[in-house]
């Protein structure tokens, strides 16, 4: 869910642009500085605000730090569905393999 901090962070159109961009594609500071009309230090500063507002996450990838959009509501739904479907596929494997071996015997 959005928070009051997120609300403030999104008051700035440049930050909205950065968030929209990492939502479409996880990016490094350099990617963002290259594609947006914003200097590298300014991008870093905006990302810092977005991180504080918990609207983005960062993870290391090789020598780079990659920023991704944080969609908490979506993430928890995805985890729940992953549990459901992982169980369903495991059931499928068990039931299908058991019944197939049965018909072969």
């Amino acid at each position, binding site marked *: 869910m959005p928070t009051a901090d997120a609300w403030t962070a999104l008051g700035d159109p440049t930050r909205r642009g950065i968030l929209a961009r990492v939502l479409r594609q996880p990016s490094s500071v350099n990617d963002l500085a290259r594609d947006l009309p914003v200097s590298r230090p300014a991008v870093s500063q905006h990302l810092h605000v977005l991180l504080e507002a918990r609207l983005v996450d960062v993870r290391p990838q090789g020598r780079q730090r990659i920023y991704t959009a944080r969609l908490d509501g979506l993430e928890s739904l995805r985890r729940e569905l992953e549990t459901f479907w992982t*169980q369903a596929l495991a059931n499928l494997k068990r039931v299908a393999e058991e019944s197939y071996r049965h018909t072969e015997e």
Partner: protein
Amino acid sequence: MSITDPTTSLRLEIDIDVPQEHAFAVFTEQFDRIKPREYNMLEVDIEETVFETHVGGHVYDRGVDGSVCRWARVLAFEPPERFVITWDIGTRWQVETDPDKASEVEVRFVPLAAERTRVELVHRHLDRHGDGWQGFRQGLESPGGWPVFLERFRELATRT
């Protein structure tokens, strides 16, 4: 093939040592044994879960007292290759009656050998369930849509 956005979808696969036809038949005709039992939106225990194996059919749970909960619609049914169903279940695990807020599950059965099948499952358009996340995204991406969305966002932000 429709385009699947990795940020709003879930992708799983499993390899099974049975022919493609058998994997498809078991998934659909014996869905009662495939669906995890503990997920239940009825007020009573589930007697049976039924997958109606034709386009326009439903997937539903039938309770021990005869009550029925339809939670998916069959959009494509192409044995033994694939099927697509909607996911009419909201984020609070309740039936979603607005079809625009339903996500979609596609399951494909890919033969790897005579007796080996890869089952690929994609659950996509998860953002359709979002409380405002869909609007959030649209608002971010279209400058004209932003003011309208801002209001919605404010409502959400102040509620939490």
